[in-house]
């Protein structure tokens, strides 16, 4: 089986002499919803940033649809069909909501951009009222929506989300997860990092558990959800250091 995204034994970090993640491997197939969990500081965000092209990968490979895409510039990764919603600062607060969407759609150009932006307002009607206002005024939930709406504009093959439910009210969390599951059913590959482990595993196909910059466990979410070892990775670590 050749997955849409294959990450093979990737080592990366913020400085060349200080790798944060070591030999990490992850794969996501078309239409698959994959969750990454792990304790704080495990390197989850770092992994996603490395895939998105924001960090230098010192060894290993990133393949998209079988093509090698290691250490491409972030904008080239976007061209290749990867969308990424960062954990924080995932919208441009100084730009209006409309401008945020325009930035997301600028690869498309002209007419296509306008149509997709109109469609985005249809899918996220809450944003319509804020069109001409600075994104800084949006609430946490609205910001998350804008970030996701922006990421979807280009109809990516793979969308990576870093803690999409962080800071959202429980009702919104459910809505976000349901939307993501629905999106996966349309054939988009989804890779998301979650703190909300149980809820995320409940809707995802497979789960990777990371700790201390390495792969620890992976498998079908249904099998891992009650695995005592998953809990041990969280607790064991916390217990050891406390």
């Amino acid at each position, binding site marked *: 089986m050749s997955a849409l995204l294959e990450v093979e034994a990737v080592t990366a970090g913020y400085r060349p*002499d*200080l790798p944060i993640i070591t030999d990490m491997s992850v794969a996501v197939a078309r239409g698959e919803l994959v969750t990454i969990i792990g*304790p*704080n*500081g495990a390197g989850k965000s770092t992994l996603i940033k490395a895939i998105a092209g924001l960090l230098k990968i010192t060894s290993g490979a990133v393949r998209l649809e079988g093509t090698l895409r290691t250490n491409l510039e972030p904008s080239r990764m976007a061209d290749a069909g990867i969308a990424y919603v960062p954990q924080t600062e995932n919208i441009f607060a100084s730009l209006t909501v409309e401008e945020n969407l325009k930035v997301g759609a600028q690869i498309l150009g002209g007419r296509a951009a306008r149509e997709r932006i109109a469609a985005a307002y249809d899918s996220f009607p809450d944003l319509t009222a804020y069109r001409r206002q600075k994104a800084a005024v949006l609430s946490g939930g609205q910001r998350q929506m804008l970030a996701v709406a922006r990421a979807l504009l280009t109809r990516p093959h793979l969308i990576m989300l870093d803690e999409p439910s962080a800071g959202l009210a429980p009702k919104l969390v459910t809505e976000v997860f349901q939307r993501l599951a629905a999106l996966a059913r349309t054939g988009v590959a989804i890779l998301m990092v979650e703190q909300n482990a149980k809820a995320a595993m409940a809707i995802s196909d497979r789960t990777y558990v990371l700790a201390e910059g390495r792969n620890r466990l992976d498998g079908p979410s249904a099998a891992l959800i009650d695995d005592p070892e998953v809990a041990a990775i969280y607790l064991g*670590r*916390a217990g050891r*250091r*406390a």
Partner: protein
Amino acid sequence: MLGIALYLVFFLIVVTIYAILVMGLNLQWGFTGLFNAGVVAFYAIGAYGTAILIGPERPELIGGFELPFALGLLGGAALAALAGLVVALATLRLREEYLAIATFGIAITVQLVALNFDALTGGANGLIGLPRPMFGYFETPNLYNVCYLVAVLAIAGAVYALLERAVRSPWGRVLRAIREDATAARSLGKNPTAIRLQAFILGSGIMGLAGGLYVGFIGFVSPIDFLPILTFQIWAMLIVGGSGNNKGAVLGVLVVWGLWTISGTLISQVVPPSLQSQAGAGQAIIIGLVIVLTLLFRPRGLIGEESVVSKHVRAARVARDNPSSS
């Protein structure tokens, strides 16, 4: 022969004074990562400060306190440190480059004061006829210069030893930790701003000391000796030798000042007087090239600094990665 020996003494005194300046800058940039774009200002403040404190009383001038040289030297250094305190207080909490901009500003301001505040600085003529320390005890000026060289060397050695001790002390280790990772250092309960402030002030004071020593050597001060190019020269000396390394700093002084002196001599012999300002430009271009090319091709300088992530940073990273509360 004697001429050459005397010139060598002169050359070495200047080199030693510049070495002290470079060590001050090294403390700020090499060890703390603070960009000082106005080195010449602190040097000038030290020089004028000393001159005003030791100078003879003159009716048309403010100052002229006729203090002993040692006190004047300390006073000049203290004034330079005070100037460092003012710019650092304004900028250290902010974006890093604001300190660079502010120090550039203080250099311009000091130059203007030196040129325009006649009553204090003597304006364009400067302050002349300053007493040279213990000059009367020597039979010839040449002997005096040799002894002054020894004295300046001793002071430079003392500054060197002091700095080496300081950067190896716990304080110095924190300094490096902050330079490498301010957030990590903060999480260990160190206050980066306070420690940076201390390093910047100490560095400024050392630069002021160098200024005072220069006054003691030539016996006058004038704006000519404090042109903006000096800041660039000192920087070139620092990075050629390798910032973060005091031995390298001294080597850099020899290389750059040698280059400057030789190119100056060559130019003055080859270039007609009518083109002197262009000739000066040529020399400045050499300094600029030294800076830019070193940064590009030999960023660690001739000697360089060991690249180690200090224990403090590692400890802080581990602590941050494993919040004990969870």
